[in-house]
């Protein structure tokens, strides 16, 4: 009988170490064939952005990500899942979000990571505000219609 998947979910202000997170899922195991990581970074928008500010709904953010991770486990045979999302002020080039999925085969790991990211983008209660280098007032980032549409492939 396969061991139950190793799950790590965190909402945190501090940065994360991707290699350490991968090691936490894979070390000492010889049954994993595929590790997919997604790391989302803060872009400077052609030099115009000084920082992103990430607001979240404490409690619900963790709960919502846990629900989505649970859903992913029912869809794919996963050996481990890590989902870390930062909040607070984040400078260009810094890491914002990390998703890792491990499985025996690559298709499950890829699809689960994409699924988790699609849901994090549009269902996890986080909101981004742009702070501009020109000192103009920060602007809340608009939700992208493509992100909402991306969920369609996982439904029905």
């Amino acid at each position, binding site marked *: 009988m396969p061991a139950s998947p190793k799950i790590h979910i965190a909402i945190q202000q501090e940065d994360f170490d991707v290699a350490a997170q991968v090691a936490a899922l894979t070390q000492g195991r010889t049954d994993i064939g595929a590790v997919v990581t997604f790391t989302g970074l803060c872009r400077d928008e052609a030099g115009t952005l000084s920082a992103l500010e*990430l607001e979240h709904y404490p409690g619900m953010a963790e709960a919502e990500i846990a629900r989505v991770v649970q859903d992913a486990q029912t869809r794919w045979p996963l050996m481990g899942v890590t989902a870390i999302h930062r909040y607070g002020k984040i400078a260009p080039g810094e890491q914002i979000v990390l998703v890792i999925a491990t499985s025996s085969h690559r298709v499950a790991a890829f699809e689960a990571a994409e699924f988790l990211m699609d849901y994090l983008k549009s269902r996890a*209660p986080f909101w981004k505000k742009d702070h501009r280098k020109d000192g103009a007032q920060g602007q809340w980032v608009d939700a992208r219609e493509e992100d909402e549409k991306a969920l369609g492939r996982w439904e029905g």
Partner: protein
Amino acid sequence: MRAVYFAWVRERIGKTDEELAPPESVVSVADLITWLSARDEGYAYAFENPDIIRTAIDQNHVQHDALIAGAREIAFFPPMTGG
């Protein structure tokens, strides 16, 4: 019932959270939005386009036709932009 506000909904209303005691005629999330919108300009601005307001009851996403009876915490926020 505690209401919590996030992102530009929070900024427009001017507070992060508050206790609400709506009248009995307010039964759904949609009713609550209408009731709140009548309070002052900040609320009216926050809810000027109710269709795009997302809501959660006790930290679960709900639609605007959800009933608020028994809710301990109701959250109002814009479309999410995480990831």
